[in-house]
């Protein structure tokens, strides 16, 4: 047994230091035995929480807990003003239920974006945009601009995430979805970036048999843009210049 494999139990219990944990996670990628043992541990212990005898929570706990949760929140909720107050967009693309931008705004740890990128290595493909290809202003190297969770439009099980990244002065939109319906014939899922009510093509994909799909798209539309939303529609083929199908997933940006 390699030294690393001995850390499986402590990893499972979450008692490794951050550094150890990262090292062990790297080890997991190359050690099938550990991966299987970890999975087995998770399965074998999955029921154990229900062994706990029901305890009555103390009076007023909900108020206390939620109060401290919302108090913990200092920055995010404070900027509720919509810098583009006029943009109460009626996207003609939609029934896109764009909630107020501020409510949708969500910044996540860069690690998720990194993970997104990692999971894409191997099948990243970039599309040349049909606009005359002037690139956007160079920006700092590889940083996460914004990441959002995509919301399904209807009572669908699909889920997804989108991240805008800036890399070498280029802007990339990375989209990843789960549990979307199969496509038929030439159908594709088309990603759109919306500015006001104007949709811009932002890559397309067809999901695999497990309903997973992903695309990385280099956004290079001329001029300055302030994207309001990202949406995914099901299109008859990959040539739609404006959305023809209904929105499957979307989120404000």
């Amino acid at each position, binding site marked *: 047994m390699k030294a690393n494999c001995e*850390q499986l139990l402590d990893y499972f219990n979450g*008692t490794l230091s951050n550094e150890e944990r990262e090292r062990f996670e790297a080890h997991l990628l190359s050690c099938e035995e550990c991966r299987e043992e970890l999975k087995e541990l*998770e399965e074998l212990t999955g*029921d154990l929480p229900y062994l706990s005898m029901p305890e009555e929570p103390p009076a007023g*706990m909900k108020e206390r807990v*939620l109060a401290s*949760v919302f108090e913990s929140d200092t920055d995010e909720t404070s900027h509720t003003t919509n810098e583009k107050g006029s943009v109460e967009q009626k996207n003609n693309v939609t029934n896109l239920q764009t909630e107020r931008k501020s409510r949708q705004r969500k910044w996540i*740890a860069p690690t998720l974006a990194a993970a997104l990128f990692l999971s894409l290595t191997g099948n990243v493909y970039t599309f040349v945009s049909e606009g005359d290809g002037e690139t956007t202003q160079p920006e700092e190297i590889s940083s996460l601009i914004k990441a959002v969770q995509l919301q399904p439009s209807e009572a669908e099980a699909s889920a997804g995430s989108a991240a805008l990244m800036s890399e070498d002065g280029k802007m990339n939109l990375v989209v990843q979805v789960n549990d979307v319906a199969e496509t038929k014939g030439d159908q594709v899922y088309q990603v759109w970036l919306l500015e006001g009510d104007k949709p811009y093509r932002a890559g397309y994909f067809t999901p695999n048999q497990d309903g997973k799909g992903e695309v990385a798209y280099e956004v290079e539309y001329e001029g300055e843009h302030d994207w309001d939303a990202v949406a995914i529609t099901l299109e008859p083929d990959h040539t739609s210049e404006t959305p023809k199908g209904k929105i499957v997933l979307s989120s404000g940006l």
Partner: protein
Amino acid sequence: MRELNDAELYGKVQAKDKEALSSLYDRYEKLLYSFSYRIVKDGGLAEEVLQEVFIKLWKGKAQYSEEKGKFSSWLLTMTRHTAIDLLRKQAKEPDYELDERDALHSDEASVEDQVEWKERGQVLRTAVSKLKGEQRKIIEMFYFKGMTHKRISEEFDLPLGTVKGRIRLALKHLKTSLSEKGGVSDESKL
């Protein structure tokens, strides 16, 4: 309108929807509190665990995605880690006495509001009661107290290399007697 499922609520929580967090809280308060209490054995500490768990959810410090399996399983794991962490910060020696109630299989603890939990707990306690004392103890120390591999090896006077095998064996025994009771272990994967 139908009720939102966990993943949908979680999505709304990420978009800073306070009501969604409150709904998730209501849905899981009792289970998470009872589970935390089972680990830290103290009401005040258990409340602290819940507070930390919900702060992590709200601030997005813990990220759930569907590849991580069922939302409830993920949430329970996060809760267990938080509770174990708090227990360790308490600095005092964790006590790892067996919880005798684990092996009770009477109806005395009624859970009006959580029928499924009650049934599952009932079957589990029956299964636990069939384990040898040593096996119950190792599950207790490992799973509910989050003791380190090294510590368990010292406690049981086992070579480091055999600890994992012992734990697996105990858990497998438990699973076997559960499946003899029929179906429960599969249901848990719903």
